[in-house]
């Protein structure tokens, strides 16, 4: 069968149909869904799948076939947020019912923070001793596995209770009593086991298992046993060494205690509520619960040893809410005073912390006891300093405390309790009380003052600190103790004034006072950290001049040890970003020599300072980022870095100074040659720049702008080849070709198009799709895009047969060795058939602004039409042979190709020609054979609509199709 393509002339004016907009009252997706449901519902059982396969099916409804519309889904489902708030409020209600005297949860969270902080910071590697009568036999067995030199297991048998007052004098009696006391709480269980040589982990495990046992004991109604376990745990706190583990020990024991307290409280609560099921007995049950509570108080009050008694009484404070709140308040104040009886300052400090912790929960409004407690704390510290001086503190040997300096150790372990107490105070005390604290702070000395200052700066409200910033600075200056170092205090102060600035007239004197101290910080790291905090303050409240002065000082410090600059890179970088983000006038910063000096620390080799400096420096930073990429960099990191750099590049805008902008892009290209996506973004930016130029001149280039856009085109043309992804190259060639043509740079445009045609084959050859879709899909869209551009592209002046570029593209597709198992070539050929048919029309369907198309160049030369027809014939042959070569299992693939070709023929070909008519009927037979009947029906309907435009030969074809 002889195949020949004949293009029909199209009459654009006749065919053109204006689209009219109609208002709609229904949601489009909603409508689709309803319809599809209605349609499918009855046929659901039969064969719903065939519907989905149909090609012309609405994609939206196809998606919706599986489930309801996502939008209405959202509407129908109960709003998750409101549901959450509902359950939240319910829960809150329940909570508030459960614990009437609960304090704001904010305090619980800060407490948890404090706990975690302590656990993380106070650890030990030395061995610990655990003493309890509740150790399981397995525990001791386990400890036997410990190497013998580390293991100590002592067994004490309870001293048999001697008959009281049997031939003993008063003092003897007391001595005997004392001996007994140690075992009093274990009466019944008899044996106290002491296990030494435990590591911290083992110690913690043991405590946790005790806690578990306590809960079990409680649940099996052995309340006394539970209480005894609680007491024994508190007794562990009686040993302060090793000091640097004590805080963690405290937290662990506290956890057990609060569990116990909670158990007691919940039980009393239940007693008061639940057992009163008959309403008449409500008051009786309440009385009973009160009686039980009082029993607990009596029981706890008779504990001989001070520490367990104090801790347990404090833990049971919440139970006073059942009996008498007033009593609870008094008990709290009394407990706070009783901590004075504890001799060891460390143990006392943590006991105070615990009392305050419970107090905050029970009576949130009361503060005076906290003030008194802090006063006591300071008092004990004076005694501590004596023993520090005498070397009697810490009790643990130096190696036990891991050789930490004892002054530093003291500051470290004493800080959390004070910090906590101050925090409790800060939230609720009056200004007057806070001022009293400041006065106390002034009166204190040494360690006490040091700790007080730190706690005050860290926990007091920022506005209060800001108000007293000047006197506090003087205090910091005069505080000569090696605990919390000055830079920490200064940083804390800085953070406060950064949040709330002091009064206007104080700002400068504060800065002067502080900076005097900062310059004398010996270690560069500390110095930089502190300077960073205060730089923020300076940048916020002062001009660039002051910032410059500060930076000068920083440079002097860093410059002194030039070789170690690298070590401080991160902190220096922090300084730069602080200065930039907080400065009121970041631009003027760049005119400051010290800021530039700081930047030059990073630049190392680049001494030249380009204009404008800001962009140059940022470019340098990005360059540093880029240079950090090496063979080990993961793809993800590369992507992130590229994103960062691209966003920076997109930010840069020189306004109307287009040449400067291009210059910047050139520099950027040089700097980021390793990152493909950055280069691609740069090319896009340059294209954008060219189009912006075109917009500025309204499409009429002057000599200068023409030269500039040519430069842009050249930039693109030489940048694209360095990319690795061929699909990206193709895309960018197309883009830059389009832009070049738009800007009347015909030579550059042609070059880009030629390159694009070459690139097309590269893409076909490679499997590179830029990560999206299959190669075939990418090729189809890109080829269609390229071909439609070529329709409007004028032939180069020296091309002898017309349609130079289209011919090139046709030849490329025709001659490429396409793999047999795909239909890509057929589809591409059909695409080209469209393009060729359009290109040989007397009037081209569209033109590029101010560029003469081929129609104007050739003026309806029949040579064009001939050329197009011969090329089309070639392609048509390709397609038809391809269809005919498909057989067996591949036969089905004929359908879509035939459908495409059929439409192409209907749209473009001259149907009066018998050849064309033959091909069309042939295709129709394929369509009937391989395409689903619904689609065939739709195709037929579409054909009928086409017939109205009066194309010759179409009625015959329709006749054929109907028959």
């Amino acid at each position, binding site marked *: 069968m002889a195949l020949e393509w004949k293009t029909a002339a199209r009459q654009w004016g006749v065919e053109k149909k204006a689209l009219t907009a109609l208002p709609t009252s229904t949601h489009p997706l909603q409508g689709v869904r309803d319809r599809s449901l209605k349609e499918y519902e009855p046929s659901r059982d039969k064969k719903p799948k065939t519907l989905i396969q149909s090609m012309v099916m609405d994609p939206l409804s196809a998606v919706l076939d599986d489930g309801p519309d996502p939008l209405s889904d959202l509407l129908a489902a109960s709003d998750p947020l409101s549901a959450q708030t509902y359950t939240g409020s319910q829960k809150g209600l329940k909570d508030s019912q459960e614990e009437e005297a609960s304090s704001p949860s904010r305090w619980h969270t800060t407490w948890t923070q404090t706990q975690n902080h302590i656990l993380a910071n106070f650890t030990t590697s030395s061995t610990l001793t655990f003493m309890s009568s509740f150790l399981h036999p397995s525990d001791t067995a386990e400890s036997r596995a410990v190497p013998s030199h580390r293991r100590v297991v002592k067994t004490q048998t309870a001293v048999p209770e001697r008959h*009281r*007052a*049997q*031939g003993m004098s*008063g*003092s003897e*009696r*007391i*001595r005997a*009593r*004392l001996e007994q*006391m140690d075992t009093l709480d274990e009466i019944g269980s008899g044996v106290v086991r002491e296990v030494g040589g435990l590591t911290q982990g083992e110690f913690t495990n043991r405590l946790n298992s005790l806690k578990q046992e306590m809960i079990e004991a409680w649940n099996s109604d052995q309340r006394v046993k539970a209480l005894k376990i609680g007491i024994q745990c508190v007794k562990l706190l*009686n040993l302060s060494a090793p000091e640097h583990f004590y805080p963690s020990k405290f937290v662990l024991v506290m956890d057990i205690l609060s569990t116990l307290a909670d158990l007691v409280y919940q039980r009393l609560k239940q007693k008061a509520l639940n057992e009163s099921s008959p309403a008449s007995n409500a008051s*009786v049950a309440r*009385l*009973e619960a009160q*009686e039980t509570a009082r029993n607990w*108080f*009596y029981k706890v*009050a*008779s504990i*001989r*040893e*001070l*520490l367990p*008694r104090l801790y347990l009484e404090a833990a049971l404070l919440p139970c006073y809410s059942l009996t008498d709140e007033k009593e609870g308040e008094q008990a709290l104040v*009394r407990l706070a*005073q*009783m901590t*004075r*009886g*504890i*001799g*060891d*300052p460390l*143990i*006392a400090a943590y006991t105070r912390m615990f009392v305050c912790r419970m107090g905050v929960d029970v009576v949130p409004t009361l503060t005076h006891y906290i003030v008194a407690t802090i006063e*006591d704390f300071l*008092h*004990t510290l004076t*005694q501590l300093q004596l023993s520090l001086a005498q070397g009697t503190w810490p009790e643990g040997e130096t190696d036990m405390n891991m050789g930490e300096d004892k002054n530093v150790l003291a500051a470290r372990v004493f800080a959390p309790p004070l910090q906590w107490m101050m925090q409790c105070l800060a939230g609720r005390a009056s200004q007057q009380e806070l001022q009293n604290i400041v006065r106390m702070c002034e009166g204190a000395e040494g360690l006490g003052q040091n700790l007080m200052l730190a706690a005050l700066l860290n926990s007091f409200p920022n506005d209060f600190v800001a108000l007293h910033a000047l006197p506090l600075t003087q205090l910091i200056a005069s505080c000569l103790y090696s605990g919390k170092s000055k830079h920490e205090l200064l940083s804390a102060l800085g953070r406060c004034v950064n949040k709330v600035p002091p009064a206007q007239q104080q700002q400068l004197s504060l800065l002067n006072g502080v900076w005097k101290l900062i310059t004398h910080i010996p270690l560069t790291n500390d110095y930089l950290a502190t300077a960073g905090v205060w730089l923020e303050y300076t940048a916020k409240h002062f001009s660039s001049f002051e910032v410059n002065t500060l930076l000068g000082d920083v440079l002097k410090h860093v410059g002194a040890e030039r070789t170690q600059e690298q070590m401080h890179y991160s902190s220096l970088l922090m300084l730069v970003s602080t200065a930039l983000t907080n400065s009121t006038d970041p631009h003027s910063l760049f005119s400051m020599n010290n800021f530039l000096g700081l930047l030059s620390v990073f630049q190392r080799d680049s001494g030249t300072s380009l204009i404008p400096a800001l962009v140059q420096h940022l470019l340098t930073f990005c360059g540093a980022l880029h240079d950090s990429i090496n063979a080990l960099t993961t793809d993800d990191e590369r992507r992130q870095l590229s994103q960062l750099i691209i966003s920076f590049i997109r930010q840069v805008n020189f306004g109307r100074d287009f040449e400067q902008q291009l210059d910047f892009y050139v520099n950027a290209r040089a700097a980021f040659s390793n990152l493909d996506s950055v280069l691609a973004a740069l090319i896009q930016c340059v294209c954008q720049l060219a189009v912006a130029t075109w917009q500025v001149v309204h499409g009429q280039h002057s000599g200068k702008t023409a030269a500039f856009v040519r430069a842009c085109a050249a930039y693109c043309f030489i940048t694209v080849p360095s990319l690795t992804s061929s699909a990206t190259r193709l895309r960018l060639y197309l883009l830059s070709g389009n832009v070049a043509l738009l800007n009347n740079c015909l030579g550059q445009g042609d070059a880009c198009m030629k390159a694009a045609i070459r690139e097309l084959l590269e893409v076909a050859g490679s499997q590179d799709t830029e990560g999206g879709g299959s190669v075939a899909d990418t090729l189809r869209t890109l080829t269609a895009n390229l071909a439609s551009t070529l329709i409007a592209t004028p032939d180069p002046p020296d091309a002898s047969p017309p349609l130079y570029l289209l011919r090139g593209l046709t030849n490329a597709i025709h001659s490429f060795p396409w793999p047999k198992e795909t239909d890509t070539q057929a589809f591409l050929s059909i695409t080209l058939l469209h393009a060729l048919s359009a290109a040989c029309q007397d009037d081209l369907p569209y033109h590029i602004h101010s560029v003469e198309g081929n129609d104007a160049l050739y003026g309806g030369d029949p040579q064009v039409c001939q050329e197009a027809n011969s090329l089309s014939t070639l392609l048509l042959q390709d397609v038809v042979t391809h269809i005919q070569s498909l057989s067996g299992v591949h036969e089905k693939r004929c359908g879509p190709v035939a459908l495409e070709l059929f439409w192409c023929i209907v749209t473009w070909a001259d149907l009066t020609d018998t050849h064309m008519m033959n091909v069309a009927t042939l295709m129709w037979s394929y369509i009937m054979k391989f395409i689903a009947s619904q689609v065939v029906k739709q195709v037929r309907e579409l054909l009928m609509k086409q017939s109205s435009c009066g194309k010759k030969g179409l009625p015959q074809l329709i006749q054929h199709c109907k028959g």
Partner: protein
Amino acid sequence: MSITIDIQLNRSSKIYHPGETVSGVVVVDSRSDTRHDGITLTMDGMVSIQLSPRSAGLLESIVSSSKPIPLLSHSVAIAKSGKLPAGQTEIPFELPLVPRSTSKTLYETYHGIYITVHYCLHCDLKRSLLAKDVNKSQEFIVEYKTGAGGKDQMEAVNFEIRPETLQNVRDRARIPRFLVRGHLDSVNCPLSKPLTGELTVCECERGISSIELQLVRVETCGSSEGHTKEASEIQNIQIGEGDVCRGIAIPVYMLFPRLFTCATTLAPNFKIEFELNIVIIFDNDHLVVETFPIKLTRT
């Protein structure tokens, strides 16, 4: 066919004051119908005194110990002989808490070592010859009415302990130099209130290992023909632990235990008195004791 008896008092605290009425129910729980020969309820109160074998001699102590002094004894039949239905039967009762004779007084419940004042309700269910009788007793507590003892003066007692104030010291040279000052808010202590005061270690050469409060009972038995006096500890409360901070006032605070104390009692043939010891123990285990007689009251 088991029967259990339970005596339930109408006060959960089980505390009654002289002159009041003790009331409650006797609950008889039986699986099946039971015949019985009557149920009686007896209220007893007695003082038992045991002489210390150490001071009174072994023989005498056994002889006189065996004779408890009855204070009160009432007996009522709360059910005539008859038949009890299966299940729970509640029989309410009321008994006046008054002494046997006007000359006797009802002392407060007290459980000491040598002296015990004990009040009890017994319930007996008599059965025919073949079956065993069923008994149940229930202790209840007698306390003086609050305010019954009249108003005592609340007067602070100051004290100062120095090496010079110590008595019976053998070797004064070995005593470290120290000074402890303080006060007790009162030595007339209502039992329901804690004992309070303050104590300050002003100075002390040696380290201190503990400061303790010791509550001691002093029981005196017998009358004119020779009596024995015994002191023993009730409870010991630590108020200072370790080398306490100098110059800071440590609170003295002690709750009186409910079981082992009663109002200070001076009866014709026995006495129950209390003392408070403040004990300061030094780090070499030497200790210093200061004693304060205290009067416990129900006010």
